[in-house]
């Protein structure tokens, strides 16, 4: 099952806070699709997910400055 989170309208620190709280809710094997903007969110969300032991399956450019990141527990 895939969960979705859109943080394109969020600012620091809520971009990272909302992602962290959603990641915590994932069960083993579940994935979270995060829509985020380039810059700090794109640099930090995949990196800190990896640091926390999650798998970053995909980083895909959607449109303009928006990216989709797929994270699996």
């Amino acid at each position, binding site marked *: 099952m895939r969960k979705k989170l859109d943080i394109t309208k969020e600012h620091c620190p*809520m971009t990272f806070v909302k992602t962290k709280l959603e990641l915590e809710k994932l069960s083993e094997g579940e994935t979270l699709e995060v829509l985020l903007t380039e810059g700090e969110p794109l640099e930090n969300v995949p990196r800190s997910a990896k640091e926390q032991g999650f798998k970053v399956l995909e980083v895909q450019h959607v449109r303009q400055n928006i990216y989709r990141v797929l994270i699996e527990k």
Partner: protein
Amino acid sequence: MKKLSIILFSGDFDRAVAAFTLATGAAAVNYQVNLFFTFWGLNVIKKKKGRSFTGKGVMARFFGFLSGGFKNLPMSRLNFLGASPKIMISLMKKRNVATLNDLLSAAIELKINLYACEMSIHILGLTKEDFIPEVKEVLGVPKFLELSDGGETLFI
């Protein structure tokens, strides 16, 4: 695990926003975070959010009323009798930036450790029950040093 400990001495609205932004941001990228509230900073975590005569003894109760709570935190500059924080909150909402209220809820959800200073509480005639239930412990300097050991510490 990386660790960040913040001492919030100030009861100013803007400084509290800074402390909580750092605390929640750090917790979100997997830091263990300790927030230690002392003196004016205690106003941020009082159970009673407005002005109230809390504490033991006439002087302490009067002081408690004057210093107020979460809803009366003044700006460190350009406070304009409390109008500025209200303007700032409405701007934050308009620009979709987390308010102090959002940050406090996030801090609790992220399980940031909240501590209150034993000595300040004693001066003000308060007890642990005068603070929000999420406050984990009332403690002194040695315990704080032990908890913050090996990480970064900020005084705000």
